C-alpha cells in the first residue's frame, strides 16, 4: 500500500482546464476590478506575502540587534521603531487578514456551494482598503516610522513621542475597516449563500472557524477604531480623555484597546484552527473526531473571547475584583482550545495516516500551539502573571501561538489548497524539508525566550544585561534557520506555478465541495448549483462517487 494519498492524472495527457477563473479574462484591470472572490483571494495572497516579508525582515533586524547586550547595531530609537513596525505590520497586515482574506476568501463560497461571496464589491473594497492602509504604513515607516509599540499606550503615544503616530493610527484604522468588511461578508455568506442541503452541521469546520472569527471581527474592530480616533484627538487637540493631567484616565485606553486586541488574537488563531481541521481529516482519511464539539468550541472561543481582555492589565492597578473575574474567565476560554487539540489528536486514531507537507505543518501546529496555549494559562493566572508579564515570556508565548500556531496553519493551508488555487502540485520532497526546517528553526528561536522571560528579561529592550546573551544568541541563530524555512516555500511555490505537476480536480481525495470541481475552478465556481446530500468529511460518500464515475467512464 502506498504511503501517499496523492492521485494525480496522467501527466502526459493531463492539461490545466482551458477555461478557469485565471484565464477567464486577461489584463491587469480584469484583476483590479474583479468581483470574483478567487481573484481577490489571489490579490490578498500576493500583498500579504509582501507584508509578511517586510515584517519578517524587521524581525531579523531585531534579532540581529539582540545578538549583543549593547545596542550597537542601531540606536535605541531605531530599535524601538523597528519592533513597533514589526508588531504593527505583522498583526494588522499579516496575521489578521492572513488565512481569512486569502484561503477564507477563496474557499468559503466553494465549500458552501455558492457562486461567490454575498457582497463581491465590498470584498474588493476591503482589499483596496487593506492596500491603502498597507501603503500608508510603509509610508510612515519610510518617513521616520513610529515608536509607540503596536499597543499605542497612552499617554506615551499621545504626549511623549514625536513620531508618526497619527498616520500609523490612520493606517490601522483603515486596515480595521478592511477586516470588518471581510468578516461581515463571511457572516452574510455563511447565513445566506449555502447551497441546498448544506445545513449548519454539514459545513466544513473551516467555515465554522471563520464564522466565529468573523463575529469577533465585526463586533470587536469598531472599538479599536473609536479608540484610535480618540487617541488622535487627544494627540492633536488634547481632549483630555486619556490624559491624567486633565483628569482623564489612561487605563480607560487600555480597556478600550484590549477590548479589541484580545479578541484579535482569536481572530488570528481561529481560522488557523479551521485549516487544521481540514488537513488532519484529509490526511487521516477520517471524519473529524467529535465534529460538533470542535464546531461549538470555535463559537465558545468567540463568545468567551470578549470577556477576558483585562488580563492584559493585571499589574496596571485595575480593581482586585476585576482581576478575579477576568482571570477566571481567562481560564474558561482556555478549555475550548484544549478540546480542539484532543479532538484533532483522536481524529488520527484508527485513521489511515499519510505525511504530506500539509500534514507535517499540521503536526507542527499541534505541538507548538499546545505549548503556546498552556503558557497562556501561566499568564492568565493572576499571580504568576505578575512575574511573567512584560517579559520575554510574553513574547515567546505570543509567538508560539501566532507564528508556531497561525503561521504553521497558514502554510499547511497554502500547501493543501495550492493545487486547487493553481491547478498544479508543489514539489513534495523539498516542501517537506521546508516544513521540518521551519519547525526546528522555530523552536530554536522562541524556546530560549521562555527561559529569558522567567529569568526576567524585559521585552522591548534594545540593550540587556550580559548574562542574558547566550540565550539571545541561540534565539538569533534559530531565527536565521527560520528565515530559510520561510524563504523556501516562496521559491518552490513560484517554481511550481510553471513546472509543477498537473493536480487534477482532487489530488488529495478530499471530501469538501471545493474538491469536487475542476482546479483552478471556473469563475462561477459551480456550473450547476450543487446539492449537499451528505455529512462533511464523508469518505464513504467519496468512495461511492468515485466508483460511480469509474463505471460511467467504463
Amino acid at each position, binding site marked *: 500500500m502506498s504511503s501517499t494519498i496523492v492521485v494525480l492524472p496522467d501527466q502526459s495527457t493531463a492539461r490545466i482546464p482551458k477555461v478557469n477563473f485565471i484565464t477567464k479574462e486577461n489584463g491587469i484591470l480584469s484583476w483590479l476590478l474583479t468581483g470574483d472572490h478567487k481573484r481577490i483571494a489571489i490579490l490578498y495572497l500576493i500583498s500579504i506575502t509582501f507584508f509578511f516579508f517586510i515584517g519578517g525582515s524587521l524581525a531579523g533586524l531585531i534579532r540581529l540587534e539582540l545578538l549583543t547586550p549593547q545596542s550597537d547595531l542601531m540606536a535605541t530609537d531605531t530599535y524601538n521603531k523597528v519592533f513597533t513596525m514589526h508588531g504593527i505590520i505583522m498583526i494588522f497586515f499579516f496575521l489578521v487578514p492572513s488565512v481569512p482574506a486569502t484561503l477564507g476568501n477563496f474557499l468559503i463560497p466553494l465549500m458552501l456551494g455558492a457562486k461567490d461571496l454575498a457582497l463581491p464589491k465590498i470584498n474588493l473594497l476591503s482589499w483596496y482598503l487593506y492596500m491603502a492602509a498597507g501603503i500608508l504604513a510603509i509610508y510612515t515607516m519610510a518617513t521616520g516610522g513610529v515608536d509607540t509599540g503596536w499597543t499605542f499606550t497612552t499617554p*506615551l503615544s499621545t*504626549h511623549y513621542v514625536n513620531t508618526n503616530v497619527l498616520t500609523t493610527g490612520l493606517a490601522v484604522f483603515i486596515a480595521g475597516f478592511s477586516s470588518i468588511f471581510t468578516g461581515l461578508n463571511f457572516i452574510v455568506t455563511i447565513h445566506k449563500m449555502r447551497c441546498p442541503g448544506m445545513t449548519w452541521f454539514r459545513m466544513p469546520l473551516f467555515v465554522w472557524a471563520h464564522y466565529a472569527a468573523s463575529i469577533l471581527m465585526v463586533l470587536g474592530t469598531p472599538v479599536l477604531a473609536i479608540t484610535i480616533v480618540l487617541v488622535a484627538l487627544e494627540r492633536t487637540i488634547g481632549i483630555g480623555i486619556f490624559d491624567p493631567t486633565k483628569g482623564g484616565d*489612561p487605563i480607560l485606553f487600555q480597556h478600550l484597546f484590549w477590548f479589541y486586541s484580545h479578541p484579535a488574537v482569536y481572530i488570528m488563531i481561529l481560522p488557523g484552527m479551521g485549516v487544521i481541521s481540514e488537513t488532519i481529516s484529509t490526511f487521516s482519511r477520517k471524519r473529524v473526531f*467529535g*465534529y460538533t464539539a470542535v464546531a461549538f468550541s470555535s463559537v465558545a472561543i468567540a463568545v468567551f473571547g470578549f470577556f477576558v481582555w483585562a488580563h492584559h492589565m493585571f499589574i496596571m492597578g485595575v480593581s482586585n475584583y476585576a482581576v478575579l473575574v477576568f482571570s477566571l474567565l481567562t*481560564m474558561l476560554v482556555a478549555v475550548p482550545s484544549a478540546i480542539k487539540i484532543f479532538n484533532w489528536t483522536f481524529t488520527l486514531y484508527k485513521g489511515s495516516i499519510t505525511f504530506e507537507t500539509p500534514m507535517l505543518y499540521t503536526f507542527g501546529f499541534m505541538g507548538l500551539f499546545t505549548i503556546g496555549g498552556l503558557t497562556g494559562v501561566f499568564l492568565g493566572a493572576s499571580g*504568576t502573571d505578575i512575574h511573567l508579564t512584560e517579559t520575554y515570556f510574553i513574547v515567546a508565548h505570543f509567538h508560539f501561538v501566532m507564528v508556531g500556531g497561525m503561521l504553521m496553519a497558514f502554510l499547511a493551508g497554502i500547501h493543501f489548497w495550492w493545487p486547487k488555487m493553481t491547478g498544479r502540485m508543489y514539489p513534495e520532497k523539498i516542501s517537506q524539508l521546508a516544513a521540518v526546517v521551519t519547525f526546528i528553526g522555530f523552536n530554536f528561536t522562541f524556546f530560549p525566550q521562555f527561559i529569558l522571560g522567567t529569568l526576567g528579561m524585559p521585552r522591548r*529592550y534594545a540593550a540587556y544585561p550580559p548574562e542574558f546573551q547566550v540565550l539571545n544568541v541561540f534565539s538569533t541563530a534559530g531565527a536565521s534557520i527560520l528565515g530559510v524555512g520561510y524563504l523556501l516555500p516562496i521559491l518552490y511555490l513560484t517554481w511550481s506555478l510553471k513546472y509543477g505537476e498537473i493536480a487534477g480536480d482532487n489530488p488529495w481525495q478530499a471530501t469538501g465541495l471545493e474538491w469536487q470541481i475542476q482546479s483552478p475552478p471556473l469563475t462561477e465556481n459551480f456550473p450547476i448549483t450543487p446539492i449537499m446530500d451528505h455529512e462533511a468529511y464523508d469518505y464513504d460518500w467519496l468512495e461511492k462517487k468515485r466508483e460511480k464515475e469509474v463505471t460511467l467512464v467504463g
Partner: protein
Amino acid sequence: MSHISPVLWQFLVKWMTTFALFPPEASKIAPQMDALLFFMVLVSLVGLVIVILLVTTFSILYRRSRHPIAVQIEGSTLLEATWTIIPLGLFLIMFVWGALLYFRIYTPPANAMNIYVVGKQWMWKAEHPGGQHEINALHIPIGKPIQLTLISQDVFHSFSIPAFRVKREAIPGRYTTVWFEATTPGTYHLFCTQYCGTNHSAMIGDIVVLTPDGYKQWLAESTSGMSLAQNGERLFASLSCNACHNARPDARGPNLANVYGAKLALNGGGTVLVDEAYLRESILNPSQHITQGFAPIMPTYQGQISEDGVIALVEYIKNLKSDYRVEQTLNTTDLLPEGEGKAAPGSAAPAAASSKTARPETAPKGVVKP
C-alpha cells in the same frame, strides 16, 4: 577541543557557567511564586507529553502503509467530557492558587515600611521616609516588609524586580503599591518593563539588599539631614497651607492632625478613608471631595507641585500627630485616629514661619547612589 573554534568554546563555557532557569529567590514571596510556576510547568509538560505520545503512536500504528482502511468514528461524548473536565479542573486550581498569590503580593502588611518611588523618563527615584533619595537604585534591609508606593510623572512605567518575583506599573496620576520582604543580601536587577520611550532599556537599576546593620549604616551616611516629612513641613509652610489648615476654631480648612487613616464625612453624604491616594487627590483636585462643614475654596495645586513635592506633603500629613488643643476644635465629624506609629518627625505642629526659599524644585536633593 578549543583549537577548533575558540569563540565557540568561550561561548559554551560562558553558557555552562551562567546558565539558569530561574532568577535567584531573594524574597519571601519568591519560593511561593516558584512553587506555582513549577506546578504549572509540570502540568504543561504532562499535557504536552500526552499529546506528543498520542500523535506519534497513532502516526506509527495507523500510518497508511500499515493501516490502509480508516475506521470512521463519530466521536465519543465520554472522552470529550474527560478532556473538557480535567483541563478545566486543572485550570481552576491554577486560577485559585494564582489569585491567592496575587493578593498576597499586592496587599501590604500594616507594619510595612513605606518607600516612595517616582518613575520618570527614564529613571527611578526612590524616596525613603528618612529623606534619603536615590536614583536608579533602592537600598533595603532584609527581614523587614517593604511597601513601595509608586507613581509616574509622565508615562506608564513598570517597577520589576525578578529576583523578588514582584512587578507593579507606575501610573501617571495614581499611586500603586506593591510589597516584598527581602531574604538574602545582595544586588539584584531592577527593570522598567513597561515600554516607556527612547531609553526604555536604560531605565534599569540595582536593588541593594543589606543586612539591618548595613542598612542603618547606609541610612546614616546617605541622609540629607531632613526627613521626607520635614521636607513636607517646609513645603507646607512655603505654600502657606497652614493659612487655612490650622487648628484655630475659625479655620477655613479642616485640621489635618491625625487625619491619616481616618474616615472623613463628606459634604453631600458619604465617607471616605484617608490614605495616601486620598491625600494626594485632595491636594491636586480639592473639589473632588469636600470635607463636611467646609466650603470648596481650596485652590488646586495641580502643576504647581512636583510629584516629589506631593509625596513630601503626603508624608508630612501622614505623620501629623498633633497636640490635643486641636482635638476640641475639630470640624471633621467622627474622627477615629488610627495612624500607625511610624518614624514621625520631631515637631509636627505647622510652623507658622514660612521660609519662601523652599520651593519644591529646590527641595533638598538626596544622595545619588550610582
